[in-house]
């Protein structure tokens, strides 16, 4: 290293010849171009732009030059250093891009590998079906009523116009609890909830009551001692069978598809008068050439539930004035609706609890 150029000494200016600066620049540019990866470029940067690089050393000599030569040399060296830095930056960008690209290629994985580590949950299809039905009615402005499954005999039967000697009581195979004189049963229908609703709120009443009910049926492909019903009750001024029909038609079309309507046949339920059986148009064959239809077994229609105009006797027992209000009620099996909606022939999987069954339905149906 030279000392400060205090005196004019032409010998000292040799390294600052233009050719030499050009050589330094060319050597640097060649090294940059030759750097194949970021690591060697790093070394090139140290070699050609570092403190000990030729251009840096040359730069330091500028001070030793005579004043006229300083400007010229400064310019030349500055240009050379600028060109080298530019080339370095450009090369750096290229190498970085190449590196990144290579990394992305190297990091590729097999995305078809299995990803499920935990278990997948699911809700019971009957729960989902109940909620779906409740939601259809809530959307119409109804509310959802509830009541206990172990129920007072009076609410399950007497209040619903099923007196102690009503022949219809024998149609319902009731689970009785002990002691018998307590008059407590497992509800055979969700209708006691309707009685409770009338006893606890004033008309207008628009409610649905989904829930579990019990009958002493032996468990087989089509019977279960416990099953699920949904009942609806409307009590308001001027309610007619036409409103019942309209409501069930709407319900059917919402649950089974556009254009699926209901058909009424005269029937008998103590709770209602007049009473009707409700058939729903088969949503598979729509009663067009039903002979080969599995869903409706060739009938074109599917038995769906019962309904009717609330018997004024029931209104009286539940504290509703039949001279002002009338009402309708309907009831359907949720399990049954689910079975024909989802093509299930044997109801037992609903109560067996095999996780493969519920899992299939996820969390909504």
């Amino acid at each position, binding site marked *: 290293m030279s000392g400060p150029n205090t005196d004019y000494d032409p010998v000292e200016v040799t390294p600052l010849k233009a050719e030499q600066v050009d050589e330094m620049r060319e050597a640097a540019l060649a090294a940059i171009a030759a750097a194949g990866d970021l690591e060697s470029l790093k070394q090139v940067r140290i070699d050609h732009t570092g403190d000990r690089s030729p251009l840096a050393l040359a730069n330091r000599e500028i001070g030793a030059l005579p004043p006229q030569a300083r400007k010229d040399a400064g310019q030349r060296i500055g240009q050379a250093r600028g060109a080298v830095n530019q080339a370095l930056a450009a090369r750096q960008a290229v190498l970085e891009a190449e590196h990144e690209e290579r990394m992305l290629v190297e990091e590729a994985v097999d995305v078809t*590998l299995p990803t499920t580590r*935990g*278990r997948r*949950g*699911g*809700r*019971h299809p009957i729960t989902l079906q109940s*909620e779906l039905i409740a939601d259809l009615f*809530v959307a*119409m*402005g109804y*509310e959802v009523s*509830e009541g206990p*499954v*172990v129920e*007072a*005999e*009076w*609410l399950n039967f*007497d209040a619903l116009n099923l007196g102690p*000697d009503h*022949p219809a009581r024998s149609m319902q195979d009731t689970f009785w*609890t002990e002691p018998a004189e*307590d*008059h*407590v049963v*497992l509800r055979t229908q969700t209708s006691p909830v309707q009685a409770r609703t009338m*006893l606890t709120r004033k008309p*207008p009443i*628009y409610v649905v009551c989904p829930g*579990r009910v019990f009958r*002493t049926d*032996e468990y087989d492909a089509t019977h279960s*001692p416990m099953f699920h019903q949904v009942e609806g009750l*409307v009590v*308001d001024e001027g309610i*007619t*069978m*036409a*409103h019942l*029909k*309209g*409501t069930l*038609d709407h319900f059917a079309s919402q649950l089974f598809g556009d254009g699926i309507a209901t058909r*009424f046949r*005269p029937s*008998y339920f103590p709770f209602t*008068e*007049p*009473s*009707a*059986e409700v058939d729903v148009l088969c949503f598979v064959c729509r009663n067009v050439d039903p002979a080969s239809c599995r869903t409706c077994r060739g009938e074109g229609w599917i038995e769906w539930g019962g309904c009717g*105009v609330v018997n004024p006797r029931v209104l*009286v*027992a539940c*504290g509703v004035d039949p001279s002002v209000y009338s009402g309708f009620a309907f009831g359907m099996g949720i399990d049954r609706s689910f079975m024909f909606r989802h093509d299930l022939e044997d109801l037992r999987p609903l*109560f067996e*609890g095999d*996780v493969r069954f519920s899992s299939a339905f996820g*969390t909504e149906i």
Partner: protein
Amino acid sequence: MKAPLSWILEHVDVPAGTTTEHLTDRLTLTGLKLEAVVSPGRDITGPLVIGRVLTMEPEPQKNGKTINWCTVDVGDANGTGEPQGIVCGAHNFEPGDLVATVLPGGVLPGGFEIGARKTYGHLSAGMICSARELGLGDDHDGIIVLPPDAGQPGDDVRPVLGLDEETIELEINPDRAYALSIRGIAREVLVSVDGASDFRDPADRQTPAANDQGHPVVVEDAEGCPVFVARTVTGFDPTARTPDHIVQRITASGMRPISLAVDVTNYVMLETGRPIHGYDADKVQGPLVVRRARDGERLTTLDGTERNLDPADLVVADDSGIIGLGGVMGGETTEMSGTTTSILVEAAHWDAVSMYRTGRRHKITSEAGRRNERGVDPTICEAAADRVVELLVEHGGGRAEPGVTVVGAPPATPVVEVPGDLAARVSGMDISEERSIECLRAVGCEVSVDGSGSGTLSVTPPPWRPDLTDAQDFSEEVIRLVGYDKVPSVLPTPPSGRGLTRPQQLRRRIGRTLAGDGFVEVVSFPFVGTSDLDDLGLPEDDPRRDLLRLSNPLSAEAPFMTTTLLPGVLRTAGKNVGHGNTDLAIFETGTVTFPRHAGPAAILPVDRRPTDEEFAALDAALPAQPLHLALVAAGDAVAGGWWGAPRPVGWADAVEAVRSVAASLGLELTVTSAELAPWHPGRCAELSVDGEVVGHAGEVHPTVCQAFGLPKRTVAAEVDLDLLIAHAVHLRPAPTFSSYPVAKEDVALVVDTSVPAADVESALREGAGELLESIRLFDVYTGDQVGEGRKSLAYALRFRAPDRTLKEGEAAAARDAAVAVAVERTGAVQRA
């Protein structure tokens, strides 16, 4: 009710060309639902023809039987015109008789295919048929011998035997008892089939007037038995056979032919709906007395059962004692038999409620009881008795005695006031008063309109419709004849609803949370037995052993309503494991039943609303029925795979599942350790909210796992959701948080292994003060470095102030304060 179509059409005319399908469609739409149309010959295919027996050679066999080798002329039906050789085991015929012959290729009921086969040394080409072989009844004593004028050999035998005769099976609702008869169904055909006419009432007949020559009858209970008619037939031939058409009709109607006398009473019951009882008159001693039974009286009924009678039972007695349960079943001592020559015919009207109660009490279901308990036309007793007498005389060669006993009279039918516009108002259809009157008259009502213009009809229902008592009942009659299919479809407009209640929403949320956490919902029956609770390992005094018992459980092993959902879910989990679903997480929600032993739930009146007190008392008498959640997990919580090893389910998964549920309600659970069956005594967490215990979770006791067929380390939880939901946070204030820097401090404390981590944490929280933002236990260590019986708990503490950056040393000071409280409370030693 099964009713042969030809029998119905004997009593009403329908337009020519009316198909069975149309007729039954109309009956269905007006309230008698078609169940099936059957004909006895529906299962018979192939050639079944009239044959004339030409020859028969009896051939004794080694097995003691004698068979007949017959040749039978079947005309051209066999394609050759040659006589058919047939082996026949029966002997009740002779050459020249016409018989029902099925030829090879025919198929009889039961899929019995007829071929030509070698038997008893002959090639038997066909079969001569008995009634049973053709599905015409149980008679297998011999083959059917056809009347000489039945037809020519080779003719199809089906029409001759009524094999093509259609029987319609209708579902009869309890309010339409009148349709449990040909009479009632014919009447329905009249009103429901367009163009039907000329109803011919089988009960409309001239009957001899009552006199005092008949068998004496005393009715002591006129309310229980308003009408009692007795007639007598003598000189009856007990060997007389029931004519074929009667056998066919009662068989088609689903009853078994027994003897002429019995068959005739059944025939008339089917025809008119009025049950009839026949006594062997020679066995009846003295007058018939109708009364209620007395305490201790007994009767052996026709079915051979000896019954202890109840003072509420209506009975028929004679000088010997009780000889029948009136209207329900006769007694053995006066039963008609194969030697009966005198028959006492009883046609009585009984109180329906008594019939129902006696039937239930003695568990007797009979065709007679079914009709009597639903209500029979009280005005046709004389006609029905007369019809029985007529048939007995006609077919049994007897003599109708002139005596006719009639005690009592049909009760008067009350007139009902029915608003003329009621049917229109109820149905929402445009039904005029005139149309209503027309429909009511069509079903047999008498209708009069007072001239006052009040719009009220005075309606007297016909005697066969005891179900028509309220004004609204009559509206149904009108509407069903106008047609349910004509009811328009109109949506009512409910007031604005309030949507789901909050508990309803939260219950759904709980289900979704659990499903999201990998649990699958199941549904079990709520029935348990004490053995289920034994399997859970519940101690004798566990409150869950106080169970509500069912009087009539389906299974003697499970006669109770359960107090816990655990047996159900554990059983279901065990079944799943058995099916190979070994990595398993299931849950169930449902109510459980805790008896309150609060006395009876009153039977309240129905002619008024119960008072609020009465209604509240009703509810208070019912068992408590809280909604529970139970869950079970077993196997691996995280499966093994290319990412690493599996993580097996542990006690913490059960606690976390409930924590997750609580969190979905905005709640944080407090966990303390507890000992409760069926959990592992050292791995059971008691879960509470705001100081109230809501449930338990943890690892299931190994013995319980074994009892339910579950792998060791199975975990479970049970929670009272009603309690949990009651605590749910409704309106939660929005959180605020500091944006100043956080200061982190770690601390490791060594405590006795018996010290709950929750206690250490709460001590640290309390000691750390307000600057503590969060605390997390990140390591638990046991081993040599901390010594026997000790554990090290390592916590990460985060400190932050809401309004400033913490000063140097402030966080460390708070940490030291936290440690100091933990040291004091839990005996902790800070680990270097």
